């Protein structure tokens, strides 16, 4: 059964018709990767699911329509979001960034500090003074702090050093044991490691849906749909 269903979803940004009636399902459990070349609408898809851009069409979460629901209520229904550019609050400390994300009394600090022990040590440091990798840890930690039904994670390894990519991939693998993840990711090594299903976007339309392993095993499909040579090494 699918946890998240998208039907005939359209988004216009200015004059551009960025999403042109896309349809896909995210099954419960595991990681579904949303793939595609740069600029095809992957980030816009996540932002549309979150209600952060005006959109038209149907989005259901566990059968409930959320396409007209404001962002904060979508989140309270159990949707966590890790944005592309991390969007940590630079003027707040790490602790304050995490505290802000708490939605109820049983925030999972044990899980977060187990995955990212560095965040405990840097609790009083301003988030704006952290490295890119540390900021990414804060962004993921904010989403993992609550018991979400689905996490929307946008390019979590973008711009990170290889060692940090591995750490983030470990965190995603652990997160996928606890909840459903819809992952936008350019690093196909990470996708190969964590994703069960793959949805491929091209210029605002869905062009492929299927098991991630099958897609990544086909050099021809990877080249044609994603514009890259091969899945690359595992992180």
């Amino acid at each position, binding site marked *: 059964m699918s946890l998240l269903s998208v039907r005939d979803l359209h988004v216009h940004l200015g004059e551009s018709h960025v999403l042109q009636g896309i349809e896909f399902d995210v099954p419960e459990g595991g990681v579904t990767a949303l793939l595609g070349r740069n600029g095809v609408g992957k980030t816009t898809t996540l932002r549309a699911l*979150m209600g*952060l851009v005006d959109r038209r069409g149907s989005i259901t979460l566990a059968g409930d329509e959320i396409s007209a629901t*404001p*962002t*904060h209520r979508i*989140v*309270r229904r159990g949707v966590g*979001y890790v*944005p592309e550019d991390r*969007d940590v*609050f*630079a*003027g*707040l400390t790490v602790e*304050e960034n995490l*505290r*802000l*994300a708490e*939605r109820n009394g049983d925030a999972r600090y044990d899980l977060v500090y187990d995955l990212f022990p560095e965040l405990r040590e840097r609790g009083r440091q301003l988030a704006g003074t952290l490295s890119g990798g540390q900021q990414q840890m804060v962004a993921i930690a*904010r989403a993992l702090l*609550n018991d979400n039904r689905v996490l929307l994670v946008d390019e979590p390894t973008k711009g990170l050093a290889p060692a940090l990519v591995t750490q983030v991939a470990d965190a995603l693998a652990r997160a996928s044991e606890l909840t459903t993840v819809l992952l936008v990711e350019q690093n196909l090594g990470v996708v190969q490691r964590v994703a069960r299903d793959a949805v491929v976007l091209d210029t605002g339309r869905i062009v492929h849906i299927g098991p991630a392993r099958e897609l990544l095993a086909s050099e021809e499909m990877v080249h044609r749909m994603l514009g890259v040579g091969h899945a690359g090494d595992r992180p």
Partner: protein
Amino acid sequence: MSTLLLLTITGVGLGALYFLIASGLSLIYGLMGVLNFAHGAFLTVGAFGMWYAESKLGGLGVLPRFLVASLVGLVVGGVFAALVELVLIRPLYRRHIEQVLVTVGLGLATTALVVAIWGNDARPIAYPGWLGRTTTVAGAHVPNDRWLLIAAAVVVLVALTTFLKRTRYGLIIRAGVENRAMVTALGIDVRKAFTLVFAIGGVAAALAGILGNVYFTTADPNRGTSLLIFAFIVVVIGGLGSLRGTAVAAVVVGLVQQYANYYASTGLGDLSVVLLLGLVLLARPRGLSGAFA
């Protein structure tokens, strides 16, 4: 020396008055991106709420009457500001031109309404006798209302800073100043923080109105409009959204105004403030502090 001291304390007192108006203006812009041209109306409503209550509390002594009337003015200012946000601003988020039109219109309409009801003349205020006397400091006879203005501004600055640092709503407001969309993406209804910030701004502006009544000894329907201009200058110099920058800028503006009026020529104070604004914007286009709350 005593003249310089008197000018300095009066300048800081005037800066305190500007800070009380500008603090709310700065927070509202920082969090919501709303240039609230109706902020002077909050001051007017608070000032006249205080004056009206004071005029109806004849049975009480001067001090309790002043305190109760001031409390009424603060409540009226806060409630009025919250209603403005809920009824007029909320439907216009992201529509900046309409916001400007509505807030400018509300500012003008509020003054016109007060004039229509109570006339254009300034209304005398009764206040405790101590406020009308002076305290001698190093040979300077400093009017006591200056101390009250400075004390009130310090209390508001400390209270607002503590609120922003120590409470969850403060955390939401500080985060919202940086990135409003991400705050909602954490499951927070940021609109409640908007209403709260408007109410806080309204109370601070009403306090400025009440203390302005004491400083000028009258309640004047046009004071909100004239002080709002200086409050905007303070906010721009201080850095939109920065409480600390606003406090520093308010004191600088108050001092420059006083010194220029005395040492250059009466009337040059206002011009000096505009020149100061130009110089600061040339040197630091984002104001003294940039945007941090």
